């Protein structure tokens, strides 16, 4: 056997993410978002955002509050950091998807626009995490202070695993009996737990 092809829905997720990467975000331009993605993969870093990107991509379990404070001292705001976290976490997910299926990572896109970032600020507070969230910090709200990143995270979560909210086809977190592509919920959760342990993530 060998590599396995991605399904149309997973290819479509990849396309949507590449489109997001190639456009201006909330705190970074398209060019800056792409530089962050490049830095995540290859460690060529010239800005605090790029340094953050590489650490998040390669060594997330080594991240400590003191390290984030150093980035802030170097000029990276917490809002900017949240956007970096979102971009890099989804990039890692899609790179792992292709690696696992037996394919090289997809080449990063070119910037589709030179528009400035939207700079859309929302009312968020520190409530259980190092970064502001809308409401208490837990997995669904991690990126909520940057709504575009939060929406993108939920898009990836629903396509790769299950939707956080009820879904018409039943592929949702609340459905403990869900079977997707022949994989039972317990099998999914076993894979989730094993992956988290391998990443030294203890949530």
């Amino acid at each position, binding site marked *: *056997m060998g590599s*396995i092809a*991605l*399904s149309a829905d*997973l290819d479509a997720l990849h396309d949507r993410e590449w489109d997001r990467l190639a456009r201006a975000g909330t705190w970074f331009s398209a060019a800056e978002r792409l530089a962050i993605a490049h830095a995540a993969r290859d460690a060529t870093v010239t800005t605090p955002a790029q340094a953050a990107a590489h650490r*998040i*991509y390669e060594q*997330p*379990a080594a*991240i400590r509050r003191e390290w984030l404070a150093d980035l802030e001292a170097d000029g990276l705001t917490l809002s900017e950091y*949240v956007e970096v*976290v*979102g971009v890099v*976490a989804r990039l*890692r*997910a899609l790179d*792992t*998807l292709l*690696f*696992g*299926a*037996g394919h090289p990572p997809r080449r990063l896109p070119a910037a589709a626009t030179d528009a400035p970032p939207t700079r859309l600020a929302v009312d968020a507070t520190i409530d*259980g*995490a*190092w*970064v502001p969230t809308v409401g208490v*910090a*837990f*997995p669904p709200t*991690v990126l909520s202070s940057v709504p575009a990143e939060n929406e993108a*995270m939920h898009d*990836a*979560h629903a*396509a*790769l*695993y299950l939707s956080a909210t009820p879904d018409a086809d039943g592929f949702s977190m609340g459905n*403990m*009996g869900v079977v*997707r*592509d*022949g*994989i039972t*919920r*317990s*099998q*999914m*959760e*076993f*894979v*989730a*737990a*094993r*992956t*988290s*342990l*391998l*990443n030294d*993530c*203890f*949530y």
Partner: protein
Amino acid sequence: MLRASADANGEAIDLRGVGDASIDSHVPHGRVLSAIAEAAVLRDGDELPAARDRAVAALGEDGTRRVIAVIANFEMMNRLLDAVGIGPPASRHAIGDAIGVALPVRFR
């Protein structure tokens, strides 16, 4: 969530199989799932082809693709949580003992 899903579906599982791949978790094809997760997360290009082939033999191509997608999802979620300092709530600390994994001091 593993224990919750197993309870909801009346499945008897051994959580120690999460922390120690040599222990049978009683999750169907647990060792196959564990092997492909390990190869994918650790970027082990030597082990991955065989792990993927075993997964395809046991779960089919669609099932293997979904397993890889779930691994990818938790590669994302693990980074989101670790990058912003969200550790396990106190109510879940005992799960570490059940899995056979010591919770780092910084989370206690």
